């Protein structure tokens, strides 16, 4: 299985003895899985916001794998281990890049669009859909966007992560 090397460049790195977590702010859509699952490690109000001593390596891997975008990624510090693809890494790829797993599925193009209401967070849309805003229409293919639900984003209609600071509940 080929790894996508772009995930590991152009961002920040956080290390413990076993793994390095890579953080790419520009790819984040504020889906908020990371801090909801593991605030001890991922706390947006702290600097630096990632504390690799906050939990176990297994738990950190599990939560990084939940990230629906390429904003968070991880690698073993021991390069040898990265070469042998284990189940955990397969899951990682399966979740992030489903197109690599079911490319011959004839039904995949008719998949319903996934519309997720995140707890106290944005609307996360994923799939093939037509997005219309500000008088323009865009075709979105196999991709993901997040729409603000709290009303305070500076980047309307998209989420910019401010719901947390604003204390949005809903």
């Amino acid at each position, binding site marked *: 299985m080929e790894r996508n090397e772009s995930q590991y460049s152009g961002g920040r790195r956080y290390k413990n003895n076993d793994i390095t977590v890579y953080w790419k702010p520009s790819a984040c859509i504020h889906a908020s899985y990371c801090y909801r699952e593991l605030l001890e490690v991922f706390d947006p109000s702290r600097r630096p916001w990632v504390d690799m001593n906050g939990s176990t390596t297994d738990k950190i891997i599990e939560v990084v794998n939940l990230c629906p975008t390429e904003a968070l990624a991880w690698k073993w510090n021991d390069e040898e281990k990265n070469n042998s693809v284990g189940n955990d890494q397969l899951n990682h790829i399966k979740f992030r890049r489903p197109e690599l797993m079911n490319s011959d599925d004839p039904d995949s193009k008719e998949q319903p*669009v996934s519309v997720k209401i995140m707890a106290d967070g944005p609307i996360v*849309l994923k799939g093939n859909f*037509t997005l*219309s805003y500000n008088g323009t229409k865009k075709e979105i293919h196999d991709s993901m966007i997040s*729409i603000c639900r709290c009303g305070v984003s500076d980047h309307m209609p998209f989420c910019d992560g401010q719901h947390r600071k604003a204390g949005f509940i809903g």
Partner: protein
Amino acid sequence: MDENKENKSQAIIEVIDFGPLKITGNFLLKDLQRDKEDSPGEVRLCRCGKSGNKPYCDESHKK
């Protein structure tokens, strides 16, 4: 021959100016806050944060 690879738009997502997010078509709505799942075909979701019936729009943005 490869027309199967063309990904067809399954839903229309319309950001209504100063209003809700209108979604029509083939979509699955999953509300992680209230643990609900539905495929309503059409829905209007609150974008202002003030709805008393979240995640749906209840026209509170007009107040």
